[in-house]
């Protein structure tokens, strides 16, 4: 049997077994048959993602675009979706959607070959941007966004193993780059030309595991691995610089053997250029996207808790005005 055949067989087997179910296969005495987990058995596709369950799947992948205007408009719509999602509870991870909108627009509409390339969403609380971008990419039904954060919904506010349309998801921060390195290693060993992207947050650079993974990926010359970090300068307790000095970030990545692209994370052209196929020297590459909290939602002003935004009276209306569609979709 060929390796590829075997991998295939095992992937099929995994599909059937619903292996990525988060349920519990403990001893008989501790399993409640048909218990709360019975509905948590999404199959896994061959690229490692979980498809959107029936009822919330989108119309189908839209053709990719590299048009800067369209990508910028997509980012604007991502913000708008995010405002509407956060409006449901009146608070949530709106800041993250505003800082990462352009990066996700470029990734989901221009770079990622959905169903082929791999994406690891390391900071699970950024999944809000993923949902919005997946709608924009045609993979998720827009109406599903109304269930964001609602009890029992598929669209949980921090990603889990049930989250549609991503492979590994991590709410315990700092774990994603390692998983991405493992995925990229599998592809490298199989001579697959697929790329692996890992989206990360700047706070994750405080977790030592990020640097373990960085060292590993460089040593094993995982040139088809690309990390994107949202350097929004924010973490739970406030500005990153007040909590831990992570700068000079670019120097750190270079000293760990990576090719570094430092870009304005709100400039879709710059992000797109940085995500071009990595040079052939075998170095993994990292895109440090410098971003500004609540960018694109100017009327919300500064000075609020950026990590977990609470919307006051009138905030939703003002934010929706800020993100009014500007042209034909």
């Amino acid at each position, binding site marked *: 049997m060929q390796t590829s055949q075997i991998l295939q067989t095992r992937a099929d087997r995994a599909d059937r077994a619903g292996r990525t179910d988060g349920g519990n296969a403990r001893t008989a005495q*501790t399993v409640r048959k048909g*218990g709360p987990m019975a509905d948590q058995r999404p199959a896994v596709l061959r690229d490692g993602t979980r498809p959107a369950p029936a009822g919330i799947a989108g119309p189908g992948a839209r053709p990719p675009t590299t048009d800067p205007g369209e990508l910028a408009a997509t980012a604007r719509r991502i913000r708008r979706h995010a405002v509407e999602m956060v409006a449901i509870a009146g608070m949530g991870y709106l800041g993250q959607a505003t800082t990462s909108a352009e990066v996700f627009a470029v990734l989901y509409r221009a770079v990622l070959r959905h169903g082929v390339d791999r994406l690891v969403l390391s900071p699970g609380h950024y999944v809000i941007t993923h949902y919005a971008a997946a709608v924009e990419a045609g993979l998720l039904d827009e109406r599903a966004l109304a269930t964001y954060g609602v009890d029992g919904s598929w669209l949980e506010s921090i990603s*889990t193993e049930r989250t549609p349309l991503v492979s590994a998801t991590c*709410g315990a921060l700092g774990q994603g780059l390692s998983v991405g390195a493992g995925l990229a290693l599998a592809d490298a060993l199989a001579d697959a030309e697929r790329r692996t992207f890992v989206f990360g947050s700047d706070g994750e650079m405080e977790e030592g595991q990020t640097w373990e993974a960085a060292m590993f990926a460089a040593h094993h010359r995982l040139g088809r691995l690309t990390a994107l970090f949202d350097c929004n300068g924010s973490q*739970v*307790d406030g500005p990153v610089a007040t909590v*831990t000095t992570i700068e000079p970030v670019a120097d750190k990545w270079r000293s760990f053997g990576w090719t570094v692209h430092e870009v304005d994370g709100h400039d879709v052209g710059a992000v797109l250029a940085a995500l071009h196929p990595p040079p052939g020297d075998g170095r993994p590459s990292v895109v440090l996207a410098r971003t500004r909290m609540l960018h694109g939602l100017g009327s919300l002003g500064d000075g609020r808790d950026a990590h977990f935004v609470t919307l006051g009276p009138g905030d939703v209306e003002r934010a929706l005005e800020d993100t009014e569609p500007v042209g034909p979709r």
Partner: protein
Amino acid sequence: MTARDGAAPPAHGVSALHPVAAADLLPFPWATTTKPYGTALVELARARPDVIALGADLTRQTETDLVRDELPRQFVNVGMAEQNLMGVASGLARAGRCVFVHTFGVFATRRPFEQVAMQIAYPRLDVKIVGFMPGLSSPGGPSHQAVDDVALMRALPNMTVVDVADATEVRQAVALLAEREGPCYLRLKRGEVPVLFGAAHRLAVPAAQWLFEGGEVTVLASGMLVATAVRAAQVLSDAGLPVSVLNVPTLEPIDRDAVLAAARRSAAVVTAENHAVAGGLGTAVAEVLAEAGAGTPLRRVGIRDGYAQASSAPWLFRRHGLDVNAVVAAAWSAAGRRGDPPTAADVPVETGRYAPV
């Protein structure tokens, strides 16, 4: 009917609760308060300059903004690096400081387990690890839900593990653990904390405390499920099944005598905890019962379904069987009662009040 007056006529005229006066249990529905821990820690730190609080990028969430703002020289934010956090705590403790370490329970125990084991528990240092958002009280999904933190900390020799029931106990726990030599793990509800106990209540470590006595079945509960057990006892007593309730704040070392007394006095024992059934209170009780050869059957109420979802705590507590009805049903069947167990009436409470789901 309330536990305090204890006099309301039982629904079926069969039995009533026997509240233990010394427990000073307040009438339901209970009031809530915020930041009982942070307030107590500031008080302690003011009196004891050797106390130092460490955070890991969750300062307000762990109520330590109070220390940071009032006693900045006794607060250090280590950032989101939990392994280093525990190492730094160890160094400070070796230098003679009494160190309180703060983060969510899940990140206090899983990420830095080896560091806690080797640099805190093994050298028996004066480090008090305070983990917020126990069990399914976190809406953040499996990555944020500390459903195994008690199991992990109980696996460590020298570690005292405490899961308190209310704000009164939270406040007393701070002083008690500061006085207790060596490493402790304290599990705390985040946000609004109910006030179950009045001023006369005295938390002791590691002693368990009877809240109701004389029942046919004993419910042993810890942490957030103490309030649940109290409500369940009321529902059961109203339905003719008298129930004792034992509040077990200390999971390690467990109050072995109290557990054996519960087994001796009851036809069955039920444990109730906001934690996986494996490794927590239920297991601690099982160990005591089995070693003693006690034939009293045990039912364990706790999380049995592996990994949960990101949803609200009430939704999760119902879905995973951590609600009043789950405790009621477990006690009912443990007592060998036939027929459907009684169900708790849904008690709507105003904001600022607490009713277990």
